[in-house]
């Protein structure tokens, strides 16, 4: 799989369409997108533009209606069962609501990131290899939670919880990070700390990241490239240089169709 000399993109999406069962409108209407190695791509757009659906489609938490999603050598849309789980293992996900296991300790939450690698029973009885535990501890120190290994996840503040979420996603050993509004539940100062952490840690680990974010100013500070969605279509893809106020106002204007 992905070695350093491979010039092809990590992720290549083509003509992706999604319609949720029982609805009459496409949420995504033919999205094309590629993400290169070590790239941090911000996805902006109004709520309901399809950002979240796009991210969730890539690891098939949402089923695409048509189109292709290629993760390096794997055609994700065609996978089922164990093969799909292997593909998911290569994509770490960071959530708006953190989605930690509240009753578990911080360290156990991070260790659970390797659930795709070890058998579920082995993880359940906490029989992780010694070096895996060492690596999880080092990662938690890296995200600034070295003193909270034994704290229950629900005892942490929002910013700390998201740090656990980041450590968990990185501990999984992914090639691509899928990040869904990582800062929407946090106050502005913490939000920019978290975005900075995601950018730095992705760079250190050599991981590409696709990051949904509705705060354009924040995206501008941390992402190298920006993709804008409007009504389920990609309407901008490039650097921030050509993204002027007029264009932004149009991107965030009322959707032409009334539905979400």
């Amino acid at each position: 799989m992905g070695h350093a000399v491979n010039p092809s993109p990590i992720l290549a999406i083509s003509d992706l369409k999604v319609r949720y069962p029982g609805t009459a409108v496409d949420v995504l209407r033919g999205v094309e997108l590629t993400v290169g190695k070590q790239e941090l791509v911000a996805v902006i757009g109004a709520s309901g533009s399809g950002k979240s659906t796009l991210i969730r489609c890539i690891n098939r938490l949402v089923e695409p209606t048509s189109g292709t999603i290629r993760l390096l050598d794997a055609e994700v849309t065609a996978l089922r069962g164990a093969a799909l789980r292997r593909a998911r293992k290569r994509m770490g996900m960071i959530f708006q609501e953190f989605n930690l296991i509240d009753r578990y300790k911080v360290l156990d939450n991070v260790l659970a990131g390797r659930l795709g690698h070890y058998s579920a029973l082995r993880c359940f009885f906490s029989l992780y290899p010694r070096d895996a535990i060492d690596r999880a501890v080092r990662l938690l120190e890296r995200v600034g939670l070295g003193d909270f290994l034994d704290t229950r996840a629900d005892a942490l503040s929002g910013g700390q919880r998201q740090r656990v979420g980041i450590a968990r996603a990185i501990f999984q050993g992914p090639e691509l990070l899928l990040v869904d509004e990582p800062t929407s539940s946090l106050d502005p100062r913490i939000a920019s700390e978290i975005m900075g952490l995601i950018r730095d840690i992705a760079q250190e680990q050599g991981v590409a990241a696709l990051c949904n974010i509705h705060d354009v100013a924040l995206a501008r500070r941390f992402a190298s490239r920006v993709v804008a969605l409007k009504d389920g279509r990609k309407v901008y893809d490039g650097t921030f240089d050509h993204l002027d106020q007029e264009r932004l106002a149009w991107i965030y204007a009322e959707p032409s169709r009334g539905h979400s």
Partner: protein
Amino acid sequence: MIASVSVVRARQLRLLSRFTVLLLSGVGLWMSLNYLNVHVERFEQLFQRLGVLFANRYYPPDLEYITRPGFLKSVLETIHMAFLAALIGLLVSAPLAWLASFNVSPFPKMGYPLARLLITTSRAIHEMIWAIIFVMIVGYGVLAGVIALTLSCIGFSAKLFAEEIESIAPGPVEAVKASGASPLGVFLFGVLPQVKTAWIGISIYTWDVVFRASTVVGFVGAGGMGWYLRRAADQLQSDRVAAIVLLIVALVACSELFSFYARKRFHG
């Protein structure tokens, strides 16, 4: 203006429908009493007759009877039956509830309806009827009782377990799924931590229910002290019936006390 007219109309309709329900309940009550030929005037004498009955026939209870070794053995048998049935029933209920929850069932197409069917069947048939059925299949004795109690335990706890699973937060489940975990991993890490406390409470409650049931399944010959209760009742030995009933009340009270402390421990 028009809006307020329709609001008033809707409120009137609601009031009317409430009175209709009240009226129908009253009519239903009257019809049932009539059909069953219930003589309400006899209720006046109920407490008086109860007093006489207790004084003359059930008092004093034959306490010597319940200390006989044969009977005590049946009490032990009853406790063992309840314990086995609750243990097996709960162990079966956990995976069954997982299959039977619409949000995280690992086999939503086949497993979900099958598990639902199994739970509903176990639940629809009363434990005494299960006991009668299994006495006919496997003969008199504790085996029939344990199977009957296990089924009633499954019908009770699996349904409550599944309801807990159906109300969990989807976020952690999604996170575990996104990491490439197997279905078992999703259950153990996404589902179980969220329902654990509730499941322990339900398990303790289930024990209460199963233990209560275990004292009477013997009535139809499915093992335990129920058999002695039936014999004493058939032979009109009311002092013995009184002693046995007293013992059942005491045992159930002990068990509930135990449950109370167990619950306090796990929730505290």
